[in-house]
């Protein structure tokens, strides 16, 4: 009986380890500018790094100022060779607080989203 239980346990662990090579939900790992950070000078772009590879057609990011106006250039891209990275260029930013909103779909079609702010200059 003990051998059967151990064999079943080993098979269960092996199954999890094997299928865990699949893709899953994409979560934000880190960002530049960092989530909730204050940067002294205006960045030229926002870059987001995710935990899973992204589906380009269904992944987007926008950046807005305190008035809700878009300040990104709309040129969202997933750099070649970095399928888990999302970038968007920015217009010249004045001092203030900006909101980054992202919606992504990982390559296995799981959607996730998130929002954070960063501050330029003294705010």
């Amino acid at each position, binding site marked *: 009986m003990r051998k059967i239980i151990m064999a079943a346990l080993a098979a269960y662990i092996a199954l999890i380890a094997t299928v865990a090579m699949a893709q*899953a939900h994409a979560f934000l790992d880190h960002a530049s500018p*960092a989530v*909730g950070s204050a940067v002294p000078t205006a960045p030229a772009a926002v870059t987001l790094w995710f*935990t*899973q590879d992204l589906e380009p057609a269904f992944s987007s990011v926008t950046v807005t100022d305190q008035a809700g106006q878009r300040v990104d250039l709309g040129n969202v891209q997933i750099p070649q060779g970095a399928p888990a990275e999302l970038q968007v260029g920015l217009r010249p930013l004045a001092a203030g607080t900006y909101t980054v909103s992202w919606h992504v779909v990982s390559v296995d079609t799981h959607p996730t*989203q998130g929002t954070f702010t960063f501050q330029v200059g003294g705010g």
Partner: protein
Amino acid sequence: MALSRFVAGAALGAVAAVLLHPGDAGAHGFAGDRFFPATILTDDPFVADEMSLPTLTRPPTGPDGAQEIDLDVDISKRITPDIDITLGQGWKYLQPKGSPAATGLSGLQTGAQYQLFVNAPHEALGLLGLNVTWAHTGRVAALGAPDFTTLSPTFDFGKGFGDLPQSLPYLRPFAVTGNLSFDFPTKTESAGTPNPNNFNYGFAFEYSLPYLQCCVKDIGLRPPFSQMIPLVEVAFTTPVNRITPGVTTTGTIQPGIIWSGSYYQIGAEAILPVNKLSGHGVGGLVQFHIYLDDLFPHSIGKPISEWF
């Protein structure tokens, strides 16, 4: 003492597994920016394709001095994107004080659930369900498994506080989930003991470090710490009729932590009884919980309605 060492060893094993496999952040129970983990004591307010295998529990010593170990498995499977069914079964080791130990199944539980609402901007979830504990699906005489079926309509909810003002940043990772249910036993008494209608209520108070990192402030946490959700769960049962003299509200308070990876999560909690009727001493549990929709996104992890 042997049981305590057993559970302590299992808890250490769970912690070691987390530290040795930091992995990535991830999975289910989403409302807007909020990810709700599958809590252990409190029923989840979302439909899912998930499985807990196993949940190993060493409850506090019973009020009659009995020692116990429970080994449970639970599975949720979506039929449609908004409807799922649940199935749970347990194996129990019971050592009554002064009597020989007994082992066996502790009773089959099934359920059907409907996702009532998901409010993304306010990170809110609501779910209606009907759970059934089936008669004679466990060892009745030796382990106290029920000889009657119980129907339990339930309402489960979740609320994240990410919609608090930006001026309260460090409160925004908080979330609470809860369930309210009512038991309707199909027999009014068993072996001369009344089976009351019970009101069950429980809550999980969570502080999400993943939410803090992704949506409030990157404070430099990295895996595995950035994937941890400290929480306190509480659950109470209050009989409302056919009350046996001396029987009042029972319940437990369970502080613990859940680590959530891309494909599975691991949880560990202490179990503190709220009164003498709920037991004495400190118990504990560990749970290994897998996300079937992440492990099998193109097959059994999808709702059955999307299989064809």
